[in-house]
C-alpha cells in the first residue's frame, strides 16, 4: 500500500532577552547553577510575575514576519503539572487566546516553494533543568532556565516528508535569527523542536493516529527520528497492529524512537486563566512601530537577489540562509559591481570553506567584504586567474592586507602583454632546437611539450592566454608551422 506521511512541528524558540519573562533575573547561558534563579523563578510565597516588554515585542516581530494575526488582547493561563524543575507547579503559558495566530512560512525545498501554515505562536515561561546524575540517589535541580521567555510556534500538519519537516525547521530557525529574536543555538537548547508524525493510506482524508517525538535538538537527528518513526508506524500497521497515541523520545545512539508515556498517563493540564496576570494588550501604534523597524525578510531578499542580480534561485537561497551572510554578500556587491555570480561563488565557496575550517561565524570573518571585493575586482579585470586568486585569498585570510599589494609583492600578476610571452617562447625554442626541428618536420605531439614548458616558465601566470589557444594561434609563426596543431586546447 502507498502511504502518505503527515507531520506537524511544535518549536520552542528561546527569546533573546536579557532578563526573564516574568522576573528581572538574567538569562545568560552557562552561569553557575541557580545563580540566576530569583525569588519569582523559585516561586517563593508572595511573589508576583511582571511581564517583560521586549519578550512581547519579539513575539510581535515574529508575527509580522510570518504574516500572522496579532491579538490585540491575549490571555495568560496556568498549565498545571508536577515536576521538581517547575517550582510553581504550573507553567505560565497561553491557551485560549495566544498572542499570535494563523500565518504561514514559505519553505523552499529542491526548487519548490512549499507553504506551511502556522496554527499559532504563544508566549510562555521555560522550566528549569533536572540533572539525574548520581547525587546519592537524588536528582539535582538547576532553576537558571526557569522563567526564560519562550515563543512556542505551532505549525499545521502540512509537511509530507522528513525532508520537508527539516526544511521548515531550518527556514524557521533562519527567520528567528534573522529577526534577532532568538540566538538559534540548538546545542544550548535555544531552539527545540517536537514533531507530530502520523501516516495514512494515500488518498484517505482522515489523519492517522499520531505520535509526538520530543526534543529533537539537531536537524540531522530530526530527519533520522522522523524517518525511523515513519518506518515504525508503517511496519506496525502493515503487520496488523495499531499506532497508539503517545510521546516518544529519539535515541540518537540507537537511531530509534522509544515510548516515553502513553495517552493513558497523559497529563490533564487543567488550564485556567492566571489570576496573577492581567490581559496582555497590544495597540496598533506599537505594532506599526515594530513593523517599521523590521529588516528586509529572507524571502523578499531571496526574490530580489534573483530579479536584481540575476542569481539563480539556488544561489539566492544559499546566500540568504543567514542574515549575516546576506549582509556580507550585499556589502561585497558594493565593492565589485556587475559580477553577482562571481561574488556568490566566492561567498558560498572559498569564504564559507575558510570560515568552516576555522570554526568562525561570518561576522567574525578574517576577510572583510572590502578586502574580498578588492580581490574579486582583479579576477573581474583579468589580472588574476582563479588559482592565483585563491592564493591571494589564503594570504589575505592568514595575514590580512590588500589584494593589490599582495599581487605586486608576490609577482602574481598575469602576464598580459604579448611581447613578454613572445620572449619566453623564443627563449624556449632557442633552448630546444631539436624539438623545434621535430615539430617543423610535422611531429605535432611536440606541441604539447612546448605548452608544458611555456606554462612552467610563466608560473601559471599566463593561463588565460594559453587556454584561449594563444600559443597555437599567435606563437605558431615562431615555430614556422602553418597548420593548426592537433594538440590545441
Amino acid at each position, binding site marked *: 500500500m502507498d502511504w502518505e506521511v503527515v507531520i506537524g512541528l511544535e518549536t520552542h524558540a528561546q527569546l533573546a532577552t536579557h532578563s526573564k519573562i516574568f522576573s528581572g533575573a538574567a538569562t545568560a547561558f552557562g552561569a553557575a547553577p541557580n545563580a540566576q534563579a530569583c525569588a519569582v523563578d523559585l516561586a517563593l510565597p508572595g511573589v508576583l510575575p511582571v511581564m517583560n516588554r521586549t519578550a512581547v515585542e519579539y513575539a510581535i516581530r515574529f508575527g509580522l514576519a510570518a504574516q500572522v494575526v496579532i491579538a490585540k488582547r491575549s490571555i495568560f493561563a496556568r498549565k498545571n503539572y508536577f515536576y521538581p524543575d517547575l517550582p510553581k507547579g504550573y507553567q505560565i503559558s497561553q491557551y485560549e487566546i495566544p498572542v499570535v495566530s494563523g500565518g504561514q512560512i514559505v519553505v523552499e525545498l529542491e526548487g519548490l516553494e512549499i507553504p506551511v501554515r502556522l496554527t499559532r505562536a504563544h508566549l510562555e515561561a521555560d522550566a528549569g533543568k533536572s540533572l*539525574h546524575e548520581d547525587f546519592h540517589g537524588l536528582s539535582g535541580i*538547576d532553576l537558571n532556565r526557569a522563567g526564560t521567555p519562550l515563543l512556542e510556534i505551532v505549525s499545521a500538519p502540512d509537511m509530507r516528508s522528513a525532508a520537508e519537516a527539516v526544511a521548515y525547521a531550518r527556514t524557521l530557525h533562519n527567520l528567528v535569527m534573522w529577526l534577532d529574536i532568538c540566538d538559534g543555538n540548538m546545542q544550548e537548547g535555544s531552539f527545540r523542536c517536537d514533531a507530530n508524525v502520523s501516516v495514512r493510506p494515500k488518498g484517505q482524508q482522515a489523519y492517522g493516529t499520531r505520535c509526538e517525538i520530543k526534543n529533537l535538538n539537531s536537524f540531522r537527528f530530526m530527519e533520522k527520528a522522523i524517518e525511523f518513526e515513519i518506518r515504525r508506524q508503517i511496519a506496525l500497521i502493515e503487520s496488523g497492529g495499531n499506532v497508539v497515541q503517545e510521546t516518544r523520545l529519539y535515541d540518537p545512539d540507537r537511531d530509534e524512537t522509544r515510548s516515553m508515556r502513553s495517552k493513558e498517563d497523559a497529563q490533564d493540564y487543567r488550564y485556567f486563566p492566571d489570576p496573577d496576570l492581567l490581559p496582555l494588550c497590544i495597540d496598533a501604534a506599537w505594532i506599526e512601530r515594530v513593523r517599521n523597524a523590521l529588516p528586509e525578510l529572507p524571502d523578499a531578499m531571496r526574490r530580489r537577489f534573483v530579479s536584481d542580480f540575476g542569481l539563480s534561485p539556488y544561489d539566492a537561497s544559499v546566500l540568504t540562509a543567514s542574515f549575516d551572510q546576506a549582509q556580507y554578500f550585499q556589502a561585497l556587491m558594493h565593492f565589485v559591481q556587475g559580477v553577482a555570480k562571481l561574488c556568490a561563488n566566492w561567498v558560498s565557496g572559498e569564504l564559507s570553506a575558510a570560515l568552516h575550517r576555522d570554526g568562525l561565524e561570518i561576522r567574525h570573518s578574517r576577510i572583510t567584504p572590502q578586502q574580498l571585493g578588492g580581490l574579486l575586482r582583479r579576477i573581474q579585470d583579468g589580472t588574476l586567474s582563479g588559482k592565483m586568486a585563491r592564493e591571494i585569498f589564503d594570504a589575505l585570510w592568514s595575514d590580512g592586507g590588500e589584494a593589490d599589494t599582495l599581487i605586486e609583492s608576490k609577482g602574481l600578476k598575469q602576464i598580459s602583454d604579448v611581447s613578454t610571452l613572445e620572449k619566453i617562447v623564443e627563449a624556449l625554442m632557442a633552448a630546444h632546437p631539436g624539438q623545434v626541428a621535430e615539430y617543423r618536420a610535422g611531429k605535432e605531439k611536440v606541441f604539447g611539450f612546448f605548452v608544458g614548458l611555456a606554462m612552467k616558465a610563466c608560473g601559471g601566470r599566463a593561463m588565460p592566454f594559453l587556454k584561449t589557444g594563444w600559443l597555437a594561434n599567435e606563437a605558431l609563426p615562431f615555430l614556422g608551422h602553418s597548420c593548426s596543431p592537433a594538440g590545441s586546447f
Partner: protein
Amino acid sequence: MALTENDLRRLARLARIRVEDNEVGTLLTQLSGILGLIDQLQAVDTRGIEPLSHALDLEQRLRPDEVTEVDRREQFQAVAPQVEAGLYLVPKVIE
C-alpha cells in the same frame, strides 16, 4: 456527570495523591457532589456573554527588559532541605 471509581483513581494518579481503598467510597460521594454544583453552573445560559479572564478590567503592565536581580543563591538555599554543588536536591524523578 457521574464519576466512576476508575476516574477517581486516575485523577488521584495525575494529582500524585495516594488514595487508600477505604477512602474511595467517601471521596466518590464528595467529588460527585462538587460535580453536581458544576452542572448547576453550566446550566446557566451564557450565550452572547464574553468569557471573563480576569476580575479586574485592567491591562497587563510591562517592565523594561533589564536585569534587576542579583545572585542570592546562598540565602535562598539556606532554607532548602538539601543542596549540593549549587543544585537543589530532590527525590529521583527520572521517568
